């Protein structure tokens, strides 16, 4: 199926992809600016969540449900990385 052809759902999925990209950019601003390290960790966390959302929208655009496996893995790894960052922060706080 041609992803760009008409239909309410593919159009809305493309719009969702555009808006999610915009949110990714906004989050990137916080990632770059964010005054403290925890701000950057939260921004990274949000970026991964937005990536999961983009995978969902993209799999609707392409009608390909295999991308969801990637979303499962990304959701798993995000949690691990956040916990690792938190452990690093707590250890670093005691120096």
């Amino acid at each position: 199926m041609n992803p760009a052809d008409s239909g309410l759902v593919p159009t809305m999925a493309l719009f969702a992809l555009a808006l999610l990209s915009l949110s990714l950019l906004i989050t990137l601003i916080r990632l770059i600016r964010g005054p403290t390290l925890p701000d950057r960790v939260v921004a990274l966390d949000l970026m991964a969540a937005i990536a999961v959302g983009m995978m969902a929208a993209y799999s609707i655009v392409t009608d390909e449900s295999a991308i969801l496996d990637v979303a499962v893995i990304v959701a798993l790894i995000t949690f691990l990385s956040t916990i690792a960052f938190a452990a690093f922060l707590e250890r670093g706080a005691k120096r």
Partner: protein
Amino acid sequence: MREIVVAAALLIGTVFVFLASVGLLRMPDLLTRMQATGKAVTLGLGCLMLAEAMHFGEAGTTVRLIVVLVFFSLTAPVAAHVIARAAYFMGIPLWEGSVADELRGTEADRRGAGTADGERSDVDGPRPPAA
């Protein structure tokens, strides 16, 4: 009919995720930023996953989406708690408009701040600047 519901769920989910990122950019300090992102992202992803499950309408896809959603809604609060805790004990500055800080000066605060080197023993003084 199903198309309309899928499109509506997509729109709502996307808007919530977008609001989360706007909140992350605009809120004044770390804790308010975290409360803006945490809830909005969980709800937004929930709506996106619902849209997806209804779009495909297959058992396998739906199960995978439920796995993502359950895992995300179980881990997001834990991750937010751990990050906020680490950041608080690190001594991040709070917004000047904050009205309550009940953890401040408690036993947990002193232990968490690692008073072994007397870094945060002045519980009545001003908060130390961010590391």
